């Protein structure tokens, strides 16, 4: 019996030791630049090519899940819920020749994309939604990016529990991909608050964390290192890769 206990506790100690080693390796921040050195290879290998699969209306997931982020609860966002987004405006500014502010009516008038695509969450699950909205590329043509513009940075109305603003970014190639859209409708209805109302990004060629919800304004910039954590997005600042085609 004693021997059994000894074997069990030795094994337990060995197993705990295993987690200690992997925990300290993963917590060793100096290694991150080395590990992240393959991210440009992922980007170069897979990149932004081809088209995400298009699904049939019968494939649409009935209860489209809501994940990780709470619906914004700041006063200015709650006011939109009161007036049904009548006062919502979407400014597109930064390194553009023709900065513009769009109303929802204007965005609806520009709507051309109507696609049933799969949402791949970084956690490993997937769902299918019918999305309708404006091709981001067509909006960029209207505001005319300057030659030095390389990234489209989207700022959200949402903040996390610590008050950090949610945001995300794409490069111009990803933004101009014909399936990348500023979505207004999900499954035949205007997007509800939980799913990112009134305007959210949908980029089916990348993981879900790139699809910024509750977009407040869009900025074109030469780089994103000056924005918040400097990694190009809220999730990127938490350690996820900027290129999320993988």
């Amino acid at each position, binding site marked *: 019996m004693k021997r059994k206990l000894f074997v069990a506790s030795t094994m337990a100690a060995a197993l705990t030791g295993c987690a200690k080693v992997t925990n300290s390796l*993963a917590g060793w921040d100096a290694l991150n630049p080395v590990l992240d050195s393959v991210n440009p290879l992922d980007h170069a290998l897979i990149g932004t090519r*081809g088209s995400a699969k298009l699904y049939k209306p019968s494939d649409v997931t009935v209860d489209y899940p809501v994940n990780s982020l709470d619906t914004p609860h700041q006063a200015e966002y709650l006011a939109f819920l009161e007036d049904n987004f009548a006062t919502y405006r979407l400014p597109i500014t930064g390194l553009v020749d023709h900065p513009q502010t769009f109303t929802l009516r204007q965005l609806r008038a520009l709507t051309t994309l109507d696609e049933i695509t799969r949402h791949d969450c970084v956690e490993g699950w997937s769902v299918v939604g019918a999305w309708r909205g404006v091709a981001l590329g067509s909006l960029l043509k209207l505001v005319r990016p300057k030659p030095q513009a390389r990234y489209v940075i989207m700022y959200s109305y949402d903040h996390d529990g610590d008050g950090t603003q949610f945001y995300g970014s794409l490069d111009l190639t990803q933004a101009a991909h014909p399936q990348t859209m500023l979505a207004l409708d999900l499954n035949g209805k205007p997007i509800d608050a939980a799913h990112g109302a009134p305007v959210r990004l949908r980029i089916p060629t990348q993981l879900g964390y790139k699809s910024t919800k509750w977009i407040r304004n869009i900025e074109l910039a030469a780089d994103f290192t000056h924005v918040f954590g400097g990694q190009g997005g809220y999730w990127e600042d938490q350690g996820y*890769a900027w290129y999320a*085609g993988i």
Partner: protein
Amino acid sequence: MEVTAGSVSPRTETHEDTPGQVVHRHSVTVRLTHWAAFLAIVVLTMSGLQIFNAAPYLDASDINNPAHRVLSLDGDQATGTAVGTTTIFGHTFTTTHVLGYTDDGMGGETVRGFPGWITFPGYQDLAAGRRWHFFFAWMFVLAGLVYFIVGFARGELQLLILRPSDLPKLWPMQAYYLHLRKEKPEHGKYNPLQKAGYTAMLFLLAPFVVLTGLALAPGFDAIANPLIWLLGGRQFARTWHFVSMLALIGFFCGHVFLVVSTGFINNMRSMTLGTYRLGPHEGTGP
């Protein structure tokens, strides 16, 4: 390579080698890529289980569908007594403290799929798991490419490939190992069973594990829609990736068993220092 009697440095294996002779078995390239791949497989498996834990279930369908659930690790600690369960093809087993409700990698227990001692890192951190997984995926692929290119160029790899002429030799070899046959069949550097195992590993399993991993990348899906269809869809690809990991672990276990049972020191010497002492009936042609 001509070597005179009494030569100090071991010679490369030829079909004129005699039993008991010490030969140079594995090149530096083979030894380095072998250990790089080993390290990569360890980290890929552990970080892969970390990634799996973020959605601890597998479906045999394109989109998640509980009706096609193959595996699910669940836990419940709300009711006072914590319970962990594993459900395989609809059959549920209680696996408290092992799977579903288990070691959180920080000295406690919590609801999670695989335990902290087998995930990388031990605590739940999907971003870190992905970061390590993708780096070592590149190490695995690069080690494989170097091994294939150099191995083919030097003709080393050709000795390892199972050929149609090896097929009739498979059973006699197996019969010998099962003690159904007294005499060991003659073979070259690798016996027919080794050839079958390594050919399956190098040309089927390793490419399959890489391909099914890539199939989980939405950017890759956009390029290779038909491949995802062939695998049965996106979530099915995730299941195949998991199954190919299990097959790799299976290969690994068999490999280690054989390494230990056929002369551990001699085998380890050949894969570290490169030299190997031929056993009886060994080294008589490819």
